[in-house]
């Protein structure tokens, strides 16, 4: 119960935290936690703040040492899968919810539902509900604490818009946006990246028409939830985008470069490109902003939503590891984290903090995340076979290439996706 009091005090302030920690000395044991984070968070200012969090936590938990280990996105998963096979898992880690099912399957991720329920109600109430639900595939199963997240944003190059004679009021519908894109092309610029090149940008455009109800997986019947009518409409959109796009993918460095050099008008992506664009604004006078991705009807938002998570491995350290995870995702830490990086996260209480919500990137991100579609939900149930994403990409790009009509493409895609899931 002493640990609970520590966590409760987190919101009150560090002074209290240090005081209560004195009591928990009796529980002290020597534990060394391995804490794996995204490589970005193991560099520069972000690392300094993570180290600060660790220092505060270990100060109140004598005998606990925590080692921060940075890993590239893919290397996190590879390291955990290998670690699961050899029994050397990181105790606390960040990763993407979309690999959650694999991690549960290999036993790298513990069900923390009971520990979670033992937390005070006011702690639990801090989190964004939909983010939290994504961690709960079934009642009484909770596999993660949602961490940073994103809703896709529409980054707009204002110089290009001006040169193409476009009113900088954000477009409210897909048709309006498409009209702008065509004008941009006529003015000799690229409108968007090739949205069929990667899975997430296909999902972003799908969300302009469909929603989470018709996306993702039905694990009971092992079928895709993609709706043929929606997909037909979306594939038709990709056909329309062919002459307008830059040929680079949403994630390519080259896409950022086109944007920075005033060749590309729109870039739909998460907030992580903002540091690059902010730097360019300083260095070469890039003028840009970020708005919501318009959907088919006014008021509907396109784009996807996804959260990074903090997970805990099963094992003897699981209790301390969970405490640390809970400490990290607690309002006081999440607010500091959000302010430092201007990054949206799953702690709704932290997002409501006036200092945080005043940050423009976060303000837009909150709306974006609420309107957006979960990219690969439901999580933590089945691991998505690799053929799934590649089938979506293949058929979207084949339809854009003109090999299928949108109707035939949508029908073919759904048949193949169901075959893939059935395997």
């Amino acid at each position: 119960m002493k640990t609970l009091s520590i966590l409760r005090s987190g919101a009150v302030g560090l002074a209290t935290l240090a005081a209560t920690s004195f009591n928990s000395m009796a529980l002290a044991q020597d534990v060394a936690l391995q804490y794996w984070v995204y490589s970005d968070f193991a560099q520069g200012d972000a690392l300094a703040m993570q180290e600060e969090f660790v220092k505060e936590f270990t100060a109140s938990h004598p005998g606990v040492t925590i080692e921060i280990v940075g890993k590239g996105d893919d290397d996190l998963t590879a390291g955990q899968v290998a670690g699961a096979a050899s029994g050397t898992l990181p105790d606390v880690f960040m990763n993407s919810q979309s690999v959650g099912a694999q991690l549960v399957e290999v036993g790298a991720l513990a069900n923390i539902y009971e520990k979670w329920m033992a937390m005070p109600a006011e702690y639990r109430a801090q989190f964004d509900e939909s983010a939290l639900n994504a961690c709960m595939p079934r009642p009484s199963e909770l596999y993660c604490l949602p961490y940073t997240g994103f809703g896709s944003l529409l980054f707009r190059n204002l110089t290009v818009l001006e040169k193409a004679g476009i009113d900088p009021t954000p477009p409210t519908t897909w048709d309006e946006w498409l009209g702008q894109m065509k004008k941009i092309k006529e003015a000799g610029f690229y409108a968007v990246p090739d949205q069929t090149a990667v899975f997430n940008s296909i999902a972003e455009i799908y969300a302009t028409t469909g929603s989470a109800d018709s996306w993702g997986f039905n694990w009971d019947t092992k079928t895709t939830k993609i709706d043929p009518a929606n997909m037909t409409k979306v594939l038709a959109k990709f056909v329309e985008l062919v002459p307008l796009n830059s040929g680079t993918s949403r994630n390519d460095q080259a896409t950022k470069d086109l944007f920075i050099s005033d060749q590309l008008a729109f870039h739909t992506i998460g907030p992580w490109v903002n540091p690059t664009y902010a730097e360019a604004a300083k260095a070469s006078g890039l003028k840009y902003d970020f708005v919501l991705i318009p959907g088919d009807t006014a008021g509907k938002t396109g784009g996807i939503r996804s959260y990074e998570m903090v997970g805990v491995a099963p094992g003897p350290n699981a209790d301390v590891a969970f405490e640390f995870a809970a400490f990290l995702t607690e309002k006081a830490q999440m607010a500091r984290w959000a302010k430092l990086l201007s990054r949206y996260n799953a702690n709704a209480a932290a997002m409501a903090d006036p200092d945080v919500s005043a940050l423009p990137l976060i303000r837009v991100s909150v709306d974006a995340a609420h309107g957006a579609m979960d990219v690969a939900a439901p999580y933590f149930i089945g691991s998505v076979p690799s053929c799934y994403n590649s089938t979506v990409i293949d058929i979207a790009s084949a339809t854009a290439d003109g090999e299928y009509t949108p109707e035939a493409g949508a029908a073919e895609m759904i048949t193949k996706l169901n075959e893939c899931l059935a395997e």
Partner: protein
Amino acid sequence: MTVVTTRPTIWTVLKWALAILIALIALFPIWWMVNVVFSMPGEPVSLNPRLWPTSLSAGIEKIRVIFTETEYLRAYGISLIYAVLTIAGVLTFGSLAAFEFSLFDFPGRRILFGIILLSLMVPTAVTIIPTYLLTSQLGWLNTMHGLVVPGLASAFGLFMLVQFMRAVPKDMIEAARLDGASHFQIYWHIALPLCRNAMVTLAILTFMQTWGNYMWPLIVSSKPQLYTVGQVVGLFNSPLSHQTVDMVMTANLLAAIPPLLFFLIFQRKIVEGVAMSGTKG
């Protein structure tokens, strides 16, 4: 075999043009990368196709940031130790075994050598997971020997040394034996000195291979204290990185500096060595 002509014919001119053109194709991409590093940050690549460096100080600043804010220098050290230990082991164990396989006959020689040759055809990706599990059972994860030891029995290295040692004259060995030299002394005083060039070649190839090795260090050393250069660069190359293009390029370029320097210093030996590995085979 060159036909030396006194006055340049059209062919000589064409030949030079072609040779220079190919040299440009081979070298320009490397030069281009240097130019990306030595330019102002945040400047788009497309506005300036980077035919030459534009800002020396900005490049130096990027290198300074990488050296001070990441563990790049330590990773250099780790990669170097990893490479040197691997080279030492591959040469020692490989040459001992090659000495026997190439110069002597003993029961089981052919079958053992055959198995070793067959293993050359198994992609490393097949064995990486079982090797990893074994390494972990030995308690060698996150240690230097865990990184090095599994790579020491190089079938390729053995094969290469065997090809060279076959050229050691049998009568020299007989003569030494009659002089009362022990088996090991023959290896040490006769066989080894005679295939010095092959050893150098193998050392070089092993260096290039260990330096570029990514997957094995990635899974064996999960702790940053043992990150190799490849792993540190991997932190920059991850697709959702917050890093700007030129920082990513700087991190990549720094990884290439040691092998490039190594090549420029030892170029004659390296080229001769690689050449020999093929022609003696």
